[in-house]
């Protein structure tokens, strides 16, 4: 482990990568404890905010021994410095009905595909992925990851109307209206006279609220996948950023889908490596060069889902307006013929 701070040179921390989703057998935990008892201080953070097991307090000469033994039972070293960092995924598929994609497979496919970037720090600054199975975002990916993969769906919310009626019978109509219907951020919900639910799915932004409240009656749709938001980070140095939408939807089911995601991650990491200034997070790079230039750099087409609203400032050069309109039309026509071919 490289040590950044001279005054703590005899207090090394080993960051090691836990099993994806933080699942343990007691056998694995005990073995880890035995190794750390032998070589280190016995202090452990389970887990650091980035998702590492942080073994804290090891002399320089024991670092290698501790690592070797941990490595033998399956643990690898996490990220530190200007590198790809250790990642995290929510419990998701393993025990949560809201999960919209296979978090473990996605997490391992992405991170294990770029171990070189993790173990040989050569990026302009840190780069973090995080994986949440649905918009509840239990691992706080939007804010804590440069590259957030968050599950969502494209078709209609699945409704069991009998269970809706049961729910209303249990909690009462007023509560149903106050707590479910009026909390929908886009007014997509309406309670019918027979206590069934009407959902305007075209207006639903997939916020999860109604599904969270009525876990038995409602579920995410069947056409599930994930979205990608890029650029989240903490305060240093320009202030906090949330990630913003870059890919509104992608399927994550077939081997091909996963290949595509990996290729996309590679494009983004390469762009970051080549274009970010030293000590600049990718959110800051995007801020500096503008989202449109970033999209061009990574080969992603513009989409209205990427903005809260179109620009309000009129100070811009638009002399290539007609060409840009043509591009949009061509893309629309292509999409239309593709969906026709599919039918």
């Amino acid at each position, binding site marked *: 482990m490289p040590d950044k701070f001279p005054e703590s040179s005899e207090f090394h921390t080993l960051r090691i990568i836990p099993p994806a989703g933080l699942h343990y*057998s007691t056998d694995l935990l005990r073995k880890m404890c035995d190794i750390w008892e032998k070589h280190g201080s016995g202090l452990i953070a389970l887990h*650091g905010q980035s998702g590492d097991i942080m073994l804290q307090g090891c002399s320089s000469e024991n670092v290698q021994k501790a690592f070797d033994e941990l490595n*033998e039972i399956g643990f690898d070293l996490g990220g530190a410095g200007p590198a790809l960092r250790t990642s995290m995924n929510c419990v998701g598929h393993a025990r949560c009905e809201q999960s919209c994609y296979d978090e473990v497979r996605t997490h391992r496919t992405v991170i294990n595909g770029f171990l070189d970037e993790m173990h040989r720090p050569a990026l302009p600054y840190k780069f973090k992925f995080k994986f949440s199975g649905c918009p509840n*975002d239990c691992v706080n990916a939007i804010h804590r990851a440069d590259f957030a993969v968050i599950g969502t769906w494209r078709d209609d919310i699945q409704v069991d109307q009998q269970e809706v009626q049961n729910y209303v019978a249990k909690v009462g109509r007023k509560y149903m209206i106050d707590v479910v219907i009026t909390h929908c951020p886009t007014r997509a919900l309406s309670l019918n006279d027979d206590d069934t639910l009407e959902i305007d799915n075209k207006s639903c932004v997939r916020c999860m609220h109604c599904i969270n409240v009525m876990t038995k009656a409602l579920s995410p749709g069947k056409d599930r996948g994930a979205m990608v938001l890029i650029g989240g980070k903490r305060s240093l*140095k320009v202030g906090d950023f949330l990630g913003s939408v870059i890919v509104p939807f992608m399927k994550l089911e077939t081997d091909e889908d996963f290949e595509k995601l990996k290729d996309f991650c590679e494009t983004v990491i390469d762009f970051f490596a080549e274009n970010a200034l030293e000590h600049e997070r990718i959110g800051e790079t995007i801020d500096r060069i503008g989202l449109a230039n970033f999209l061009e750099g990574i080969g992603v087409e513009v989409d209205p889902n990427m903005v809260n609203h179109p620009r309000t400032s009129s100070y811009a050069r638009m002399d290539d307006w007609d060409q840009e309109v043509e591009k949009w039309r061509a893309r629309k026509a292509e999409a239309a013929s593709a969906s026709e071919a599919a039918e």
Partner: protein
Amino acid sequence: MSEATQPRRPIESGVMDPFPYMHPLLKKNYGQWKWHDRLRPGVLHHVAHGGDEVWTVRAGTQRQMDLHTIRKLCDIADQHAEGHMRFTTRSNAEFMVSTEAQVGPLVEKLQDEGFPVGGTGASVSMISHTQGWLHCDIPGTDASGVVKSLMDELHKEFIQEKMPNRVRITTSCCQINCGGQGDIAINVQYTKPPKINHDLVGNVCERPAVIARCPVAAIRPAMVNGKPSLEVDEKKCVCCGACYPPCPPMQINGPESTKLAVWVGGKHSNARSKPTFHKLVVAGLPNNPPRWPEVTEVVTTILYAYKKNARHWERMGEWIERIGWPRFFELTELPFTKHHIDDWRGARKTLNTSTHVYF
């Protein structure tokens, strides 16, 4: 060390495959869960499409652990939870069991051993915090210590689900705020520019890197007593502490000048409203170990105002959004000062550019 053996080549295995360690029922029903409910605070019950059921008991741990505690958790898992466990991002331990009958003895055992069972649903979940004195390069205070004091106070809200919605409390030991956004965030706020030990700067610090790090360009190279050093434009300095890690002679921490600030209304989930950042409520609280009574008082005041006034499922920030900031300051009897007005980039977006006001 005298062994002349070949250095061992590391196996770059990356992220570990969790399936060999996962509870068998979770593995069997991976991606096949249908719905869940909660039997009581701290106990989840999940049902799979195929009819399998699993019960999960969640208990708080202190994140900062020692071998004894981890082994104790392992003993509990071996005796009562089929030899498996997992952790949540907020350092709660979770034990899965395959019959409802196992839940009672597991809960009892955890409580006997001093692990509070709770943290589910509309409760105050385990505080997410950075590591403070133990492992940070610049801890203004001991985040873990503040957490301990607060959790003693908030324990009762961890083990019941009596809040309007879940409450995430975070703490951070510097303004960079590694603890993250929270419904309530308790963060160190430095109030004095760094004091520079000029004798050391030349030897210890890579000066251009330190200069580049300052968010307000307040650091310049300087010669002091004939030695290369740095100087800080104290009028510009925002006391963020960012220059300290790359240059420890720039001492930012002081027993009196290191204060604590409380922020509210941060949220990560997309449920109902979009994710938001937390906003400043109180600064200038003394760093007063070992119990930090001033901080605890402010936090509990805010928490109980929320508990009393918010509607079911409103998060802290959503509640304030509805009632407005004037009413928030009125209900909590906290002062509103010029420091509450943002002046960083984009500050204009935080001003009220409408005629909507609250009286």
